[in-house]
Structures are given as C-alpha cells and as structure tokens.
C-alpha cells in the first residue's frame, strides 16, 4: 500500500499540472468565498434599517458553525479544477504508454487501478485540506463571538471529502474509459455543466425529482444550499429541511455509485488488452 502511494507520489510531485491545480485551488477557494462574503456584508451592513434586519434575519453564513457548510457549498462549484488534474493523471498513463510499462515492470493490473484510486484520494484530500483551512479562516475572521461553536457541523468535512472523491471518481472513469485527455475533458465539461443541469431541472419539475439520481447530483446533494437560503419564506424553509433530511440517504447512494465506478474499473482492467 505505502509502496504504491510512494510510487504515485514520484509520478505526481514533479508533474507541473499538479502544482498548477494546487495553486489555482489555493486561489479559487478563498476567492469565491471572499466574494460571497463581501456580497453578504454589503447586503447586511449599514445604517439602513432594512440591512440590519436582514443581518439579524439571515445570520452570518461565514461564522461558526455555518462556515463549514457555506464554504463547502461554494467551494464545491470548483470540482472542475481537480477533475482536470485527475483526468490528466489517468490519460497521461495512456499517452506515455506507462500503463503498460508499469505492468511490464511488475505491477499487477489491480495494483495499477489501486494506484490510480490513491491518486484520486490524494487529490481529494488536498482539496479538502484547502476547504478546511478556508472555512476555518472565515469562521475565525467573520465573527469572534461564535468561535465557541466551532465544532458544530463538522460533519461537512467528511461530506465534502466524500463529495469530492465521488465526483473525481466520475472524472477518473471518463479518463479511464475514453483514454484521450481532451475528449474526456470535453465530455466531462459538457455533461457536468450543461446536460446534467438541464436534465436535473427538468426532472425536478416534471419527473418527481428523479434527477437527484444523476451521477453528479447524487453527491451534490450531500451539501445542500447554505442555511440562510431557508430564511426566505415558508417554501424555502421546507425545501431546505427536506434537503438536509435527505443527506444520509445520499451518503448511501454516493458510496454505492462510487463503489460501482471503481468496481467497474477493476473488472475492466483485469480483462482488457492494454
């Protein structure tokens, strides 16, 4: 196990795209949350009576413990960035034909897939690490009076990790099956940004919300919209509570889908010509 991780680290640590991803994520996560934070501040700060009411009414989404939830939600929009890296990490092996050489040199075919699973896990952990730092930073900065509540809602850390790992696993599957980086990336983007959103919204209104079983939506629902969305009326409150109540269910679905993805990869790799 550790031998596999060490070898993957040898491959990754000098890969420029990896460091680009790290830098971009390092900039993007704080940036998107800062933008949202200042948007919120602007809407709720001032002498204006309405703004003060708004602040009391909405609460601060970046104070503890809600920061764990809000930052997870906004950061998860950018799954695209690590997805590109994951797709590159698997399609590189085909481009360089090192998927063959690794076997020739003495890996089993299972070890090859396991090594890639570790890649996805490593990337997920790094991304989750950034999320934790950013969420923590906002929690401390936004409102020092709520720091004592820091340990509430920590469940969003494992949820964020699971969501990231699940969605990166889909990216991996695409790269693994399609083999060509640009085609895999194209399909990934087109599906993730367009197809699934259309299908999901259509299903929401017409098909009793079966869209929640679409590959990305399954894990998207691990982290529902931040709590302040629930304060815009009775309907919003009901749908927020419903989304929260569905999280455990979606944990199960996500784990099942992700397990299925890796099971397929193992099975296919055991049999196919490389």
């Amino acid at each position, binding site marked *: 196990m550790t031998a596999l991780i060490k070898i993957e680290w040898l491959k990754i640590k*000098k890969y420029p795209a990896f460091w680009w991803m790290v830098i971009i994520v390092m900039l993007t996560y704080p940036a998107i949350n800062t933008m949202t934070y200042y948007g919120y501040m602007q809407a709720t700060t001032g002498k204006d009576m309405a703004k003060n009411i708004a602040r009391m009414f909405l609460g601060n989404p970046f104070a503890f413990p809600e920061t764990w939830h809000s930052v997870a939600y906004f950061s998860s929009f950018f799954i695209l960035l690590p997805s590109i890296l994951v797709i590159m990490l698997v399609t*590189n092996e085909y*481009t*360089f*034909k090192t998927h063959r050489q690794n*076997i*020739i*040199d003495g890996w089993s075919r299972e070890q090859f897939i396991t090594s890639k699973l570790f890649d996805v896990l490593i990337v997920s952990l790094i991304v989750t690490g950034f999320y934790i730092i950013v969420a923590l930073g906002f929690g401390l900065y936004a409102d020092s009076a709520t720091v004592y509540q820091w340990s509430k809602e920590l469940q969003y850390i494992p949820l964020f990790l699971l969501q990231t790992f699940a969605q990166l696993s889909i990216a991996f599957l695409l790269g693994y099956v399609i083999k060509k980086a640009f085609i895999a990336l194209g399909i990934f983007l087109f599906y993730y940004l367009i197809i699934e959103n259309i299908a999901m919204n259509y299903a929401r209104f017409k098909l009793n919300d079966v869209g929640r079983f679409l590959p990305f939506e399954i894990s998207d629902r691990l982290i529902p919209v931040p709590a302040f969305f629930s304060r815009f009326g009775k309907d919003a409150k009901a749908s927020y509570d419903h989304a929260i109540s569905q999280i455990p269910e979606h944990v199960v679905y996500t784990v099942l889908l992700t397990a299925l993805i890796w099971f397929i990869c193992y099975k296919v790799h055991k*049999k196919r*010509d490389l």
Partner: protein
Amino acid sequence: MQQVLSLSSISKSYGSIKALKEVSFDVPEGAVFGILGPNGSGKTTMLSIILDILKSDAGSFQWFGQPGSPATRKRIGSLLETPNFYHYLSAIDNLNITQAISGRGNKEDIEQVLKIVKLYERRKSKFSTFSLGMKQRLAIAAALLGDPQVLVFDEPTNGLDPVGIAEIRELIKELSKRGKTIIMASHLLDEVEKVCTHVAILKKGTLITAGNVDEVFSNEDIVEVSAADPDQLFALLENYPAHTNIKRDGNRVQLFFPIGTVKLEDINRYCFEKGISLNLLLVRKERLETRFFELTNDK
C-alpha cells in the same frame, strides 16, 4: 536444461484478424533467442502476451516453470515496442519509478545503467527532451536495471545510429556471455544473424520454425566451384554423388549438400581426375536473408 520460457498453443485474434495461431516454443536458459518475422507477423503481440499486456484467447505460457505473474515479471528486464516513460520526468526519476515498481536495483545501479547506455551526462534532463535514440537507450537502461537474469527486447536497435546499433549488439553478446537469457524480436536479420543462438520465425501469426540458429538456417551446405569452362564443369558435377541440388550462378556452379556431409578434397580430386582444374572451391553457409525469404515466402 531449464526452460526460461515455454509457450503452448498461444492464439490471439483482433476481431477477424488472427494475430497468432497456436504458437508454441521453448526458450532454453542462456539462449539469445531471436524472434523473426516481417512487419505484422505477430512478434510484438506475442511478447505483449508473455508480459501480460495482452490477454491471449487460448493457450498458456510459463516463465521459469510457473504461470506468468507480477513476481515473474519483476525478474525480467523488458523493452516492449516503444520506450514508455513519463515525459515530464528526468531519466533518473523515470528509472526511480522502474526501480520502485520492479524492486530491481538501487540508486547506484541506476547511475551505473545510465553509464552503460551513455546517458549519464543527461541523467537530469527531461525525457521529453531526448532524441529517439536516447529514448531507446533509456529503455534499454531500464531493462538492464538490477541485472536481471532474463531480458526481453522488442526491436532493441530501433532509432539508433550505426554506432549505437553496434554498441547494443556488443552489449547483447556480453550479456549472453554472462549467462543471461535474451529474448529479442527483430526484423533486422543482420542483427539476429550476428548475435542469436536460437530463432523462431513467425509469419502471419503462424510459427514457421523454431530452434537452434544452425539447424533453422543451414540445413544445406553450399559448395561453390568454378573453372575455365563452366559448362563443362556443370556437366561433370551433375554426376557427382550425394548432392541434393545443383545450380549455375554466372560462371560459378553451386552444389548443395546435406549439412555436414561435404568433403572439399573429394570434389577437388574428382574434378582433377576428370581433367578439370578448379580455380575456385569454397563452402558457403546459406545467408540468413535468403533462407528467411524462402521460409516466409508465400507459396
């Protein structure tokens, strides 16, 4: 003697194309085993199967008397088809990965194999900056890492300049001297002729023949003779006993004998006694190339 590798009835199809048809042969320990065949005859397919890159449709193979496994592959240094390395990594970093996966060699060995293939000076350059020949050298270095007992080379001299080709040939001879078993696919007959002890010939996925080089290629000795009057000589030698065939090649007459049966003195005396003085008399081993074309010819 132990067989290093045994293939039995290996078959492989790509759709309707049969790439290998029930190929069986053994590679004895210490052999330099050449696999010959024109482009598309199934050489690389066969090597890919024994290295678990491709799955055969039928048949089986054994390395060191055991079914192929990651453990057996770790004992074999292999270069298959193209040099496969991470483009963004240096020569040394790539070999570090080879070393980590195969468990063969250590840090010093990596430097040593880089010296053998003359890439030591460029050890820190990225693989993507290498020329074709340098990439090939690195692949050979990776195969040599940790001094494995068995080496598999698929077209080892691909992309090398004449000096490089000669160096690889010397390297193979030296490895063979040290008792290594070398399995080498090539379409360069010259290469095979100069280094191989055994050969297998593939043609359109069928194994035509396999065995010791001398047995496969020279089942006949050719005696070339000439005299002032070639016509008279030809007429005379037609009646010479025990030959299997006779041909005219310009002014020379070629007499074919089963291997090892020819006695030049007898031919000389025979002609002299019949009143013809020879101005040329020699035994010629059949050229590999000629034999190869004969064997792989479409009939």
